[in-house]
C-alpha cells in the first residue's frame, strides 16, 4: 500500500509539473512571438500551432489530475442531498465505474485516431511534425484517467480507511 501511495504521489507530481510547464512555456512562446513581430519585424508561424498543441496535452493530462482530486465539474445535487446515506456510496461507486469505462473508451478510440494518422502519415500544417504526436494526448490522458477513477472506485469500495490514507499521501 505504501509503495502504491508513493507511486501515486510521484505520478501526481510529474503530471503537475508537466501541465504547469506547458502553460508557462506557451505563454512565453506567444509573448516572444509578439515581441519578435513588432521589435524585429519577424514572427514564427509555428508559435500559434505549438501553443495549441501544448494546450491540448495540458488539458488531457490535467484531466487526469482533476480525476485524481475529484475536481471534475459535475452536477452534484444528488450527492449533496444524500449526505452520509448508504445509497450515496452505491451512487459514487457506479459513477466511478462508468468513468473507468468511458476512460477506456478514450484509450481505444483515441488509439484508433493515432493509428489512422500514422497510417496516412499526416503532419501538422506549420511545424510539420506527425499529427499523431498531438492526438496521442487522448489515449494517454484516457489511460491515466482510467487509473485515477479505478483508484477512487477501489478506495470507495474498501471503505473510508483506505480513502483517508490515499488522501494523506496526496
Amino acid at each position, binding site marked *: 500500500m505504501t509503495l502504491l501511495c508513493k507511486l501515486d504521489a510521484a505520478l501526481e507530481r510529474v503530471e503537475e509539473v508537466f501541465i504547469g510547464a506547458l502553460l508557462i512555456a506557451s505563454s512565453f512562446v506567444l509573448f516572444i512571438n*509578439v515581441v519578435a513581430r513588432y521589435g524585429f519585424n519577424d514572427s514564427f508561424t509555428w508559435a500559434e500551432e505549438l501553443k495549441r498543441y501544448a494546450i491540448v496535452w495540458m488539458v488531457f493530462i490535467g484531466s487526469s489530475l482533476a480525476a485524481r482530486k475529484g475536481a471534475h*465539474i459535475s452536477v452534484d445535487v444528488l450527492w449533496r442531498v444524500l449526505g452520509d446515506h448508504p445509497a450515496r456510496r452505491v451512487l459514487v461507486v457506479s459513477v466511478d465505474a462508468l468513468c473507468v469505462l468511458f476512460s477506456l473508451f478514450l484509450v481505444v478510440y483515441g488509439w484508433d485516431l493515432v493509428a489512422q494518422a500514422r497510417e496516412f502519415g499526416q503532419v501538422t500544417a506549420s511545424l510539420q511534425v506527425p499529427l499523431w504526436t498531438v492526438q496521442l494526448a487522448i489515449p494517454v490522458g484516457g489511460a491515466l484517467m482510467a487509473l485515477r477513477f479505478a483508484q477512487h472506485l477501489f478506495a470507495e469500495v474498501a471503505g473510508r480507511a483506505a480513502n483517508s490514507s490515499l488522501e494523506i499521501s496526496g
Partner: protein
Amino acid sequence: MTSVFFASLVVLLTIGVPIFFVLSAAVGAAMWLEGGLPLAIITERLFAGLDKFSLMAIPFFILTGNLMSVGGLSRRLVHLANLLVGRVTGGLGITAVCSSMFFGAISGSSPATVVAVGSVLYPSLLKGGYGQPFSIGVLIASGSLGIIIPPSIVMIVYAAVTGVSVGALFIAGVGAGVAYGFCFMVYCVYYAWRNNVPRGDIPPWSAVGKALVDASWGLGVPLVVLGGIYAGVFTPTEAAAVSVIYSLFVSAFIYREKSLFELWKTILDSASATAQIMIILAAASVLSWYLTANGLAVETTQAMLSLSDNPVMILMLINAAVLIAGMFIDAASIMVILGPLLYKVGMEIGVDPIHLGIILTVNGAIGMYTPPFGLNLFVASSLGDVSYGQAVRGSFPFIFIGIVGLIIVTYVPAFSMWLPHQVYQGL
C-alpha cells in the same frame, strides 16, 4: 434513438458523472445503438473541439487573474476604490461593487473575484456597520461582475460555439457590466440610508493620487488587453499571453509579496483549473456535432419558436430557462450546452448575436450566486465565519436586483451595443 440520447444525458448528469463524460458518453450511447457510424468520430471531435484557435485565450486569462490576485493587487484595488467612492452614503458597499468591477477587468472568473475582493473587504464591511447578510450578499453578487466585465471566460466560450467576435463581445460587456453593477450600487445606497449605516471617513483627494499610482501596475492589464485588441496590435489570445508575462513580472519584481515558489504553485493551480473547463468545451463539440448531424438542433429551435413569435416573449423564455439552468450548473457549461441552440433561436427572432451573448452572460452571472448551487455561495465560506445558509440568506435581495439588471440589459440593447458600434464601424 433521440430518446436514448436525451435519457442518458439526463440520467448521467443527475447521478453526478463529470459533465464532459456525460456529453460525449450520451452521444456515444446513441451512436452505438444506431450503428453505422464509427465511434472514433467521438474522439476525433473531442480533439478538433479542443484544437481551436478561439479557445486558446482561456488558459492565459485564468492564469493572469490568479497571478494578480495572489500577487497583492486585490488589496490595492480595493483601497483605490474605497478612496474614490467610499465617501458617500453606502460608500463601503459601493466600494465592494466597484472593486469587483476593477478586479473583473483583470480576471475572467467570478469565484476568483469574490475571494480576491471579499477577503479584503468582508471584515471592513462588518466593522463599518453593515449587517452580515448584506455584507456577504454584496460580495458574492458583485463578484459575478467578474464574468461580465472583460476579459470573460464565459464570453470566450460563447464566441467559440457561435463564431461571434470575442473582441466585440468584450467591449459590449463593458457597458452591460456597468449597467448591472450600477443597480447594485443603487441598492447599497438605499440599504445604508434605510439602516442608518454611518458614512466612512472622508479621505483627502491627495491620497487618491498615491493609491492610483500604487494600483496602476494592476490596472495596466485591462489597458494592455483591451487596448491591444482594439488597436489591432494582437489577437485576444496573444493579449492574454502578454498579460500573463506582465502580471508575472509585476508580482515577482514590483509587488514582491509572494515568493517565486508560491507563484509557481499558482501556475500549477491555474493549469489544473483550465483543464477542468476546457475538457468540457472539447466534449461540447461532440454534442454540437451530434445535434447538428441529426437535425436535433433545428427541431429544438423550432419547438422553442413555436411557443411564441413575439421576440419580447422569446427573450423572456430564454432568460427564464437560463436562470433556472444557472441554479444548477455553472455559466461556462450553460454556454456550452445551450449556447448554440439559443444562438439559432436568437437569429430567427432577429436579436443581435453580440447582444444575445451579453444577455446570456449576465444570466450566467446571476446563476453564479443563485441557490442552491451557485458557485459563489460555496466560495463565501472562505471569507471567514460564513455558513452556506447565511450566504443563501444574503443572496436573496441581490438576486432580485440582479434580475432587474438583466431585464435592463435585455430590453435596452443600447447599454451593450453602443460601445461596439463606436469601435467597430461596420457592425
